[in-house]
């Protein structure tokens, strides 16, 4: 009898070891994270100091907006667009000049990159995060005169209020180009121009292909949002104006 039991044990062990596990049934579903689930207190407590610090910082008042500024308050130029291109240029100019000894001629941003309006009243850190939630960084691309003409053609064809500075464009009533001036002067053949823009656009974002192969490229390591915050801190009330930099007759 003992022998038989021993044999049975060996047999069972062998049979068992050989038996491979295989999937017999799969059930799949998704679970909604709704407010009917209790919040884990340890996680909640852990988050709190991080959240409080952000809230405190976000609610700091940096400047003041005299009116509501949004990206559709003009046809080819807008108050918020003009503000953006002006401060990107003015905040970048000293850094670029110090590094290269050269000056910025033009600023070009994209209309789609303005993600929120600036409401009338106190401007908080939160405002900068709303307007510019992305991590886009400032670069200066040196363009040939051909590519600057390409830039102008792009703006004329797009008929969209892409923010510009240093460049003025006049169109006739049929949106045909009448005049394009860089700092008051016609674009000179054979000359190169320094265009400050975002890394996103320089990399071909919004199909701005004229930015893709610049003569030189200077990466400022300065985020647009940080430039905005620095600029807000430096002014008491921000300007809100349309100045005819991009107009149609």
């Amino acid at each position, binding site marked *: 009898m003992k022998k038989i*039991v021993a044999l*049975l*044990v060996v047999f*069972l*062990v062998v*049979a*068992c*070891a050989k*038996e*491979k*596990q*295989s*999937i*017999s*049934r*799969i*059930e*799949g*579903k*998704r*679970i*909604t*994270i*709704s*407010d009917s*689930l*209790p*919040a*884990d*207190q*340890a*996680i*909640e407590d*852990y*988050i709190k100091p*991080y*959240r409080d*610090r*952000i809230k405190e*910082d*976000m609610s700091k008042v940096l400047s003041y907006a005299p009116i509501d500024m949004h990206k559709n308050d003009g046809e080819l130029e807008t108050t918020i667009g003009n503000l953006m291109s002006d401060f990107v240029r003015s905040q970048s100019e000293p850094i670029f000049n110090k590094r290269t000894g050269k000056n910025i001629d033009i600023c070009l941003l994209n209309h789609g990159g303005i993600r929120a309006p600036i409401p009338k009243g106190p401007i908080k850190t939160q405002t900068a*995060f709303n307007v510019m939630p992305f*991590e886009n960084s400032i670069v200066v691309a040196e363009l040939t005169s051909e590519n600057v003409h390409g830039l102008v053609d792009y703006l004329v064809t797009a008929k969209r209020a892409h923010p510009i500075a240093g460049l003025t464009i006049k169109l006739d009533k049929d949106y045909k180009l009448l005049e394009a001036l860089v700092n008051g002067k016609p674009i000179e053949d054979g000359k190169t121009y320094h265009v400050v823009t975002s*890394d996103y656009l320089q*990399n*071909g974002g919004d199909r701005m292909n004229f930015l893709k192969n610049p003569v030189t490229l200077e*990466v400022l390591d300065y985020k647009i*949002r940080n430039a905005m915050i620095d600029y807000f801190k430096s002014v008491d009330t921000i300007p809100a104006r349309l100045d005819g930099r991009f107009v149609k007759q």
Partner: protein
Amino acid sequence: MKRRDFIQHSLATGAFVTLGGLSLQSFTANNAKKHITILHTNDVHSHIDPFDANDARNPNQGGAARRASLIANIRKENPNTLLLDAGDIFQGTPYFNYYGGELEFKLMSMMKYDLATIGNHDYDNGIDGLYAQLPNADFEFVSANYDFTNTVMDTHVKPYKIFIKDGIKIGIFGLGIKLNGLVDKRMYKETVYNDPIESAQDMSRILKEEEKCDLVICLSHLGYKYSKHPDRPSDLILAKKTKNIDLIIGGHTHTFLPKPTIEKNLNGDSVLVNQVGAYGLYVGRIDFYFDDEKNVIANGKSIIVK
């Protein structure tokens, strides 16, 4: 592992024998029904707090603290649970802008995430920014098609990881999306992107044939599918062009699948493809029940998605 299996089985057998009169049939039945639960998230994008009560699209939904309590409850119900993330952990709220991903990784560690793969936005503070946050992650990262050899991430990301839960061997590999054109080269530096479909074919062979895994899972940040670019590598293409993968957990396209998709692989076997949108609004749950192979052959395999 083989030896431990043997010991466990022989102990069980001994117990049966002393009880006496047990047939082989009942022995098999007793060993059946192992149960592995897979929980997964993707594209959480730093959404640590729930959406506002007056949010237009997702009022009062999401939030890390609620997700944590859900996960803890499921783990209590089934300790043989794995918690996975398919990338884009970073970027989307000021938590990332202020703390660079520190809190995201710390909370995921508190929730006991087991494994994650890398999404394109996890490069948003550059590969050095990702590397700097690694000490805050108690979980590991897998990617089979990113070659990190000449980067700071070298040796910190493996192609795959194997878990053993209740004697079930689970092999999980990662796949990342093409970075060129999506992420600035200055951010991803010398990360080399290799063909994800080829990498997946290699991985599934290694995990199934060499490592002899019972369950093979792919953590993918390729995207669910691209209607306008049907040839672009996606989870659905991956499912069709490979074999031996049981589950593909996806991300990147923020696809809110109400239930997992069932696709046929090269062998005509079923593959589950799942993705739970974004922002921690949902958690995906896939339960795998195991039985002895011969019972599965006799009784068939069922897949229930709802």
